[in-house]
């Protein structure tokens, strides 16, 4: 792998940009691998990277039905935070956040992780109670999160409207300074390039059409659009399409796939310095390095694989943004898009073994998967390499739904982004 640096750029500037090489190889699938990851999004690519980098399993392939990073990774509002309520969740997301903090250097790819702070607003007495419970729990878990008064919130985010006479005035907010954003495409490409350098095969346009099991019921091979590939260790990291892929092995999971929309404005000079989220009036906003306001909200109401949502859902989101930021009413929507998010009943993910030996799954991230990318990849790789979960993902089993050990972040906060 050719090292990226200012020096390389300088050299290429004088060399007419002739020295660049493909960031990952374009390869045909081999007949057999030690590990296969189904799904070439950020999570899947990260898992492949860590399988090779930390567990020495370099005979690994990532199978992607389209182009890598083209699912939810590529249609993302890129919020990163770890201030979750329950101990299990805080450990999981903070594991990811710590990986984010060094990711550019580890991958030698600037993923533009930008800890500009995530400010979660409270608008009602109940919101304040919930926010403070989070802050106390986070502090106990060593996760930074602090309470800001309305005036402090405005100082942190100047365009925020803290007038008391609006419909749902801002009563304060919980700020995680270590939270922020990153560049979604770079995450996928950075992991792909680093995994490729370790020998991982990244195979695009390779839809999985069957999961083949041996006489004992264990994973034996993967049937794909590009032929049969033998492998006894298969990880599924297919986000909204997880149910469809696992259905090939007759594995059913407590998942439903919903459309999640987001939009960006036309680019403007810096206006929003941090990420602002409001769960009770359903909107969040940040500004990309390019200058676009990046805006989203919760999912649409019904399950769908269309990768698009309804106009009225956008309208609700934008009316909330215009209340919080009344100066943005004249800004204009440039692009709107939809992803497919797989949601579990307790809004917490599953990173676990399935009942099929050799088949592992990482799913159920709902609207909040991007922030977990390095962590989930790391933990899925661990679980696949050792055939047992890492202590951090041990609670995130499938069996918790049978036993009632839910990790119900949704109950405490209406939306978990």
């Amino acid at each position: 792998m050719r090292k990226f640096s200012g020096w390389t750029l300088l050299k290429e500037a004088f060399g007419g940009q002739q020295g660049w090489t493909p960031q990952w190889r374009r390869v045909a699938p081999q007949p057999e691998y030690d590990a296969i990851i189904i799904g070439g999004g950020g999570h899947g690519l990260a898992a492949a990277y860590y399988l090779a980098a930390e567990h020495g399993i370099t005979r690994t392939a990532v199978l992607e039905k389209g182009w890598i990073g083209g699912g939810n990774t590529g249609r993302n509002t890129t919020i990163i935070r770890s201030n979750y309520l329950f101990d299990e969740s805080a450990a999981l997301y903070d594991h990811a956040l710590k990986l984010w903090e060094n990711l550019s250097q580890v991958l030698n790819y600037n993923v533009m992780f930008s800890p500009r702070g995530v400010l979660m607003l409270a608008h009602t007495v109940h919101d304040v109670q919930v926010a403070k419970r989070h802050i106390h729990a986070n502090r106990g878990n060593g996760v930074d999160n602090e309470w800001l008064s309305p005036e402090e919130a405005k100082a942190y985010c100047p365009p925020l409207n803290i007038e008391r006479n609006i419909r749902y005035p801002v009563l304060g907010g919980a700020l995680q300074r270590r939270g922020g954003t990153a560049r979604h495409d770079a995450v996928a490409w950075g992991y792909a390039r680093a995994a490729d350098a370790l020998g991982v095969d990244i195979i695009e346009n390779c839809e999985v059409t069957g999961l083949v099991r041996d006489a004992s019921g264990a994973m034996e091979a993967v049937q794909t659009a590009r032929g049969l590939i033998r492998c006894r260790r298969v990880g599924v990291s297919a986000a909204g399409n997880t149910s469809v892929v696992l259905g090939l092995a007759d594995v059913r999971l407590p998942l439903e796939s919903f459309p999640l929309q987001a939009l960006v404005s036309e680019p403007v000079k810096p206006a929003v310095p941090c990420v602002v989220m409001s769960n009770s009036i359903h909107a969040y906003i940040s500004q990309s390095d390019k200058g676009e306001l990046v805006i989203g909200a919760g999912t649409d109401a019904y399950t769908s694989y269309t990768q698009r949502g309804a106009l009225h859902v956008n309208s609700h989101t934008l009316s909330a943004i215009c209340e919080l930021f009344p100066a943005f009413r004249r800004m204009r929507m440039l692009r709107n898009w939809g992803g497919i998010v797989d949601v579990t009943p307790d809004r917490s993910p599953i990173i676990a073994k399935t009942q099929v030996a050799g088949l592992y799954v990482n799913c159920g991230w709902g609207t909040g998967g991007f922030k977990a990318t390095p962590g989930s990849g790391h933990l899925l790789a661990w679980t696949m390499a050792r055939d047992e979960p890492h202590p951090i993902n041990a609670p995130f089993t499938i069996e918790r739904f049978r036993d009632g050990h839910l990790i119900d972040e949704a109950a405490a906060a209406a939306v978990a982004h």
Partner: protein
Amino acid sequence: MLLIQCPYCGLRPELEFAYAGQAHVARPADPSTTSPEQWAEFLYLRNNTRGIHAERWRHVRGCARFFNALRDTTTDHFLATYRAGEPMPAIQAVQQP
């Protein structure tokens, strides 16, 4: 905003409806006799179909009735709607040629 054929009121805008999840998930007649797996299946396991999906809607801001629908989740087009309690129509019968 979808346009949904309420079996009672006719074609109406989605703003009047509430989605109510997968259809034909019957609550066990005697839950106390179900195994933990069966009960978890009733509570949580859903088909999450990519394709033709039997689902429930409620015309909550209309006639207020729950009813069932067949919708293609890859296009969001409805193939049929029918009243609660009625059997699911054969998919071939409602598919357009």
